[in-house]
């Protein structure tokens, strides 16, 4: 085991995948010579050469299109979109080409492409560096979508994604790159080295898709979250002294319905938390799924905690970010009906 932050864990995942399989290539803006704006690809070009770690023009549509072509022709590309906020020029390539290739060709062609993108707020990045567009991908058939909340899962999911023969969108909460974040920006930053999930095997392992993780077992209420909100939810439940069961979804598509619904059927109460905009967010899918499976066990209406229905603001970031206070309000609301 080694101590790693999420950046080092992701870097280790690509390093291992490239070392094991010469068909794995990395491409994106500034991923090669510079090592990535968040240093996630640092050192890879020096180690594996310019022909395997490619700096691309600032053209997201082109990055994904090139990755698809590489994938169809036998490579395993890992494409980085520098910020999830920049993915929209590539959206047509992802939705119309990448996601459908296997279906459109009746299984003759496929492209094992992994698309990495830093997402989420809490870094004073304003509306162009803070978005959480996971639901735009979760809604598209043919894509796997995952968002880790810690270095261990980040490495395991990225290795799993690279080795998967179909496209995977890996959203990386950039506020968690250097340490866990409980939603309070006034607290000093905490490094991953102090967190159990900062213990990461140096070797190869994969975290399977479609499996959520029970971060904390509890009996009174189930909190379903992913990414940064896992840590916010833990802090909010602790502050309220609630015996909450906290579930990290990890893999949005495919979704681990059993783990989620077994928990809610047990506790009878459910709070869903994500950073992304509430309206038609992934929480709506989670709420509907829970309702379908757990209706007769529900003691109270399911509560959602999410970003407001506005673009991510430049100012008032901490009014927008669904921090502990908003999670606590939802927990109180869901605990109130006896």
């Amino acid at each position, binding site marked *: 085991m080694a101590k790693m932050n999420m950046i080092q864990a992701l870097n280790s995942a690509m390093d291992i995948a490239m070392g094991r399989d010469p068909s794995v290539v990395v491409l994106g803006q500034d991923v090669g010579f510079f090592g990535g704006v968040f240093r996630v690809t640092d050192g890879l070009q020096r180690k594996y050469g310019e022909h395997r770690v490619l700096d691309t023009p600032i053209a997201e549509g082109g990055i994904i299109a090139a990755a698809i072509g590489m994938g169809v022709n036998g490579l395993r590309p890992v494409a980085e979109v520098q910020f999830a906020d920049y993915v929209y020029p590539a959206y047509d390539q992802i939705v119309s080409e990448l996601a459908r290739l296997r279906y459109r060709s009746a299984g003759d062609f496929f492209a094992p492409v992994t698309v990495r993108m830093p997402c989420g707020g809490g870094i004073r990045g304003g509306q162009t560096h803070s978005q959480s567009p996971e639901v735009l991908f979760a809604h598209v058939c043919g894509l796997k979508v995952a968002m880790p909340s810690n270095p261990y899962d980040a490495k395991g999911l990225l290795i799993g994604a690279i080795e998967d023969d179909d496209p995977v969108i890996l959203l990386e909460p950039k506020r968690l790159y250097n340490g866990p974040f409980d939603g309070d920006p006034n607290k000093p930053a905490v490094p991953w080295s102090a967190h159990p999930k900062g213990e990461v095997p140096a070797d190869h392992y994969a975290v399977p898709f479609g499996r959520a993780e029970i971060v904390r077992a509890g009996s009174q209420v189930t909190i379903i979250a992913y990414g940064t909100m896992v840590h916010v939810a833990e802090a909010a439940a602790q502050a309220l002294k609630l015996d909450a069961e906290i579930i990290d979804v990890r893999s949005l598509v495919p979704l681990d319905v059993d783990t989620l619904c077994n928990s809610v059927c047990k506790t*009878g109460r459910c709070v869903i938390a994500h950073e992304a905009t509430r309206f038609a967010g992934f929480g709506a899918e989670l709420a509907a799924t829970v309702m379908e499976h757990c209706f*007769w*066990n529900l003691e*109270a209406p399911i509560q959602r905690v999410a970003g407001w229905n506005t673009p991510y603001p430049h100012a008032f970031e901490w009014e927008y970010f669904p921090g502990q206070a908003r999670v606590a309000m939802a927990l109180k609301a869901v605990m109130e009906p*006896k």
Partner: protein
Amino acid sequence: MSVHVFKLPDLGEGTVSAEVVNWLVKPGDVLKEDQPLVEMSTDKAVVEIPAPVSGRVLTITGKPGDVIAVGAELATFDTALAGATPAADTKPAAAAAVAGASAAQPPHRPVAAPAGEAAQVRASPATRRRAQEAGVDLARVAGSGTSGRITSEDLQAAIAARGAPAGGAPQPGAAQAGAARPAPAKGATAAEVEEIPVIGIRRVIAQRMSEAARSIPHFSYVEEVDISALHAMREHLNATAPKGAAPLSYLPFIVAALVRALQRYPQCNAHYDAAREVVLRHRAVHVGIATQTSEGLKVPVVRNADQLKLRALAAEIGRVTAAARDRSAKREELGGSTITVTSLGKLGGIASTPIINMPEVAIIGVNRAVERPMVVAGAIAIRRMMNLSSSFDHRFVDGADAAGLIQALRDLLEHPATIFIAE
């Protein structure tokens, strides 16, 4: 017709619901504003609620024993008749017609719908499932939650209150509920077994006693006290009292001595706030006086007993207990005690194991005073003896402290002048 909907107001101190004790009106009656409408019981006090407007009563919600949520509809009035004289409108036929019309087209849904009436039930899915499994018709259960929602506790109470089916036909789900329900003796008839619904004050007593017995690890401590000197002092004070002064019982002396003893043992004059996990030690001593009333046990409170001299203390004990008995006690006079004294006087027996009045941590029980042969200085002497049987919350009161309090109390009562001598 102009309909005024009257919702149950907040009756104070964050009351969330109240129980119907007695309707003073019926649909069809014509009332003037402020005329008594209904008696409602909160945790302990019974409150008479006046009519908020003048008009004719269209509907009333709930029968005696039903719990109505604050904010839920209590009654509706037709205020268009405000100017009409009662005599013109209380003809039975007219009243019946109005009542019938309103029953056919109720303007608002009552919280507890009468049997047979299809009413929309507010309850969580989980409560609905449990009700179905237990064979309970939620339309017949009163809701104490927000907007009349039937809570899980309401359902539990309904299941617990449900008697055995009278006609012998088993109710659906009787198998599950049967285990918790005492079956009447075989062949018992209504003439042999009287069913007494647990409602009102009795329900509050039952809930509080169960909770205290369930959650507090009680221990009881019994000590005998030689009150011969106290008896003599009391006789003297009563013999020399100013004309018209009420005779003194032992109780004010015991309360005065307790206040004194608590100065040394403040851990017994406390509340436990379970939600926050803190013990609240009170500087003031508010003494609850367990009082038998025609409705059952109540605990009226002598506030700031530590500030009162003996006769004022006696007068205040007399006042609050009388108010509890004649139901004139205000809500705030029936709560907020920091320690409780329970005394049954001549019925006090020789020992008892009183249940603590939550959230307090101690209760002082007073047993019967009686002359007994005792050994004094090597010889048998007739002394007036009285036992104190007290219970303590062992989580927060250690045995040594409980014993210390009772020994201090005994010492004061055996040397009664010291109760009144400032140190």
